[in-house]
């Protein structure tokens, strides 16, 4: 494709630039497009993961779309997405703004806050599972009544625990993004506001938040798309239980594909997941305004 631009005569100088995209493109095609097409094809087949693949038209899709488990899994996925977004975003913005200060103690604190980022989800899940064990966990060990609840055995408690751990794990990451965002806001804005007599809180709502608009969109996109494919933590922590209280779509897909040997329906769910992810990402971009590249400093 780059040779074409080169042949127009004027593009000689930038002839090398398109080539730089080739490695990324190859990876994208190899690890995203090809598997995606494969999954799409598989969703129209019957395959137990072991034997031969038989084309079966819409059988898998019909099975998935009529299964009452699907709306439930969609609902749980949506709830995890919405609640964890609602918990993480305000907390991350506040923490990020706080950490953007130049004081030394804030730098030390930010180091501590980022510790959860260093741990793998599986390790976090195993650790929390042990801590929350109703018989051998923290509550039983310390003898405290309010801690020794059946955290992972009651549907809504288990759901709350999942959201809490997700937040605990990812708030540091999003705080990091917001910290960067806040530090890019020109000091002159705050100085002008101070001259006009605006207090700290007024500055936060009138300068910091509006200036963080695109950071919020970026962080929200990551959160929402991330929670769509959330799997490892829930799998280790509850396996979707109790019952199906925390059975999110990604887990549903895994269980159908790799435990029930139904690769066709599992692929259909995977396609649903991809479509949902794309739709939400597009929606969030739209929310950010038509031209994401426009200046954030208009009127500054």
């Amino acid at each position: 494709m780059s040779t074409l631009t080169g042949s127009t005569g004027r593009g000689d100088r930038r002839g090398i630039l398109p080539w730089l995209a080739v490695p990324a493109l190859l990876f994208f095609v190899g690890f995203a497009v090809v598997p995606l097409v494969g999954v799409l094809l598989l969703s129209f087949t019957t395959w137990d993961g072991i034997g031969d693949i038989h084309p079966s038209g819409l059988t898998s899709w019909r099975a998935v779309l009529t299964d009452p488990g699907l709306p439930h899994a969609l609902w749980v996925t949506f709830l995890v997405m919405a609640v964890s977004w609602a918990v993480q975003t305000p907390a991350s913005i506040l923490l990020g703004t706080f950490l953007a200060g130049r004081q030394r103690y804030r730098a030390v604190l930010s180091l501590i806050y980022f510790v959860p980022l260093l741990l793998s989800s599986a390790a976090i899940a195993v650790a929390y599972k042990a801590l929350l064990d109703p018989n051998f966990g923290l509550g039983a060990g310390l003898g405290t009544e309010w801690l020794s609840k059946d955290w992972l055995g009651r549907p809504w408690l288990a759901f709350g625990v999942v959201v809490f751990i997700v937040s605990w794990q990812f708030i540091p990451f999003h705080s990091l993004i917001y910290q960067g965002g806040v530090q890019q806001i020109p000091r002159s804005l705050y100085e002008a506001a101070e001259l006009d007599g605006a207090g700290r809180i007024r500055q936060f709502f009138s300068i910091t938040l509006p200036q963080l608009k695109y950071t919020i969109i970026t962080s929200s996109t990551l959160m929402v798309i991330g929670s769509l494919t959330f799997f490892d933590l829930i799998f280790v922590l509850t396996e979707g239980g109790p019952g199906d209280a925390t059975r999110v779509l990604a887990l549903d897909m895994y269980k159908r594909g790799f435990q029930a040997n139904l690769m066709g329906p599992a692929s259909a769910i995977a396609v649903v997941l991809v479509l949902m992810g794309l739709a939400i990402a597009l929606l969030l971009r739209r929310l950010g305004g038509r031209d994401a590249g426009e200046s954030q400093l208009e009127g500054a």
Partner: protein
Amino acid sequence: MEIHLSRRTLLGLAAGVPASAALAACGSSGPGKGGDGGSATYWHLSGQPQEGVRTGAVERFNDANPKGQIQVTTFENDAYKTKIKTAIGAGKAPTIIWGWGGGTLRSYVEADQVDDLTPWFDQNPEIKNRLFPSSFGAATVDGRIYAMPFESVEPIVLFYNKRVFDDVGVEPPQSWDDIMALVPRFNAAGIAPFSLGGQSRWTNMMWLEFLFDRIGGPEVFQAVFDGEKDAWSHPAAIDALTKVQDLVKADGFIKGFSSITADSNADQALLYTDKAAMMLHGSWSYGIQQTEGGDFVSGGGLGFMNFPPVEGGKGDPGNSVGNPAQYLSISSKASAEQKKIAKDFFATGVLTDAEVKEWIGTGAVPIAKGSEKLLAASESAEFLQFVYGIASNAKTFGQSWDQALSPTAAETLLDNIARLFQLSVSPQQFTDNLNEVIGK
């Protein structure tokens, strides 16, 4: 049914190939590794004390056969079940496939992934004849044998903690009504009547296996297995499902059972730490409690019995359910050389006298004929003879449901069992959901 021993759920799940597995593979490849005779691969479950017996058998074989080595990789139970399926589907199966027989083996057979061992057994009748005949049922698909039974017979038994029975001043249950009468007694004493690792789901299933059998006899599940239409709707099935929910409602199971996994052995720890009075579990649990329970087993704290009868039930109270054996198959994709090594291993390396003794040492009854004579000399003689008695006297020794059924039907079953214990489906909904996957 499965053997859960490892605490390394983390490693097992963090990656398809746990680090422990890689380490085990290095450790057991032995001095003569590489060699000019090529080597076969063998995957099996991790977790002591069973893992040590398995790798020990391979080490002895490798020492005796420097030209035909076997390389072992071990996996934690749940990780293994997924890994082996994926590997077989991808054509990357190990030469020797360790498994549970039954419905999963059938799915391998139908995909032509494992070798038919019938001719080999016909040529080597002495190998077939030294194993318990009852162990071949789950290795047989449409009249052909696709796996070699080995290791030990593992019925599900009712374990109980004699210490807490003495403290509360009650006797072990002789019937279902006794069980229901014991529940409030133990609850009043602040002890959970039954321990249960409910998140693992197959642990709950054991309750249904026995209740179905005791109430309606083995033919109730046999009808499901045979794919008869609406077989789950049998009146005995509804009765059994209702009884189990009654037990849940009466707080018969430990608080938080639905978030306890058997993989971590927490359910067994509840029994030997006196937090629970009874536990329905596989006989392999004996070895685990012996290893981890301090002086619980050696001090005579552990009691065991077959599941008691249900009043008015048709099933024979001597019947049992569990794993008739473990099974070894040979991948059809292996090279001729690898298959030869595997068969040599089956013939000379599996259930050798040394291995039989080691199984007995772990509190298990090996399926090699004649090993019953060795049981009395063991320090676990009482338990071993009890297990041997169940295995040899049961009119019906059912295979665990999740192993007998196809993986598709088994997953639906386990899923609904979890909901049944969660009281989120009624017995009627349960049977409706399962009737839909009969024969699938």
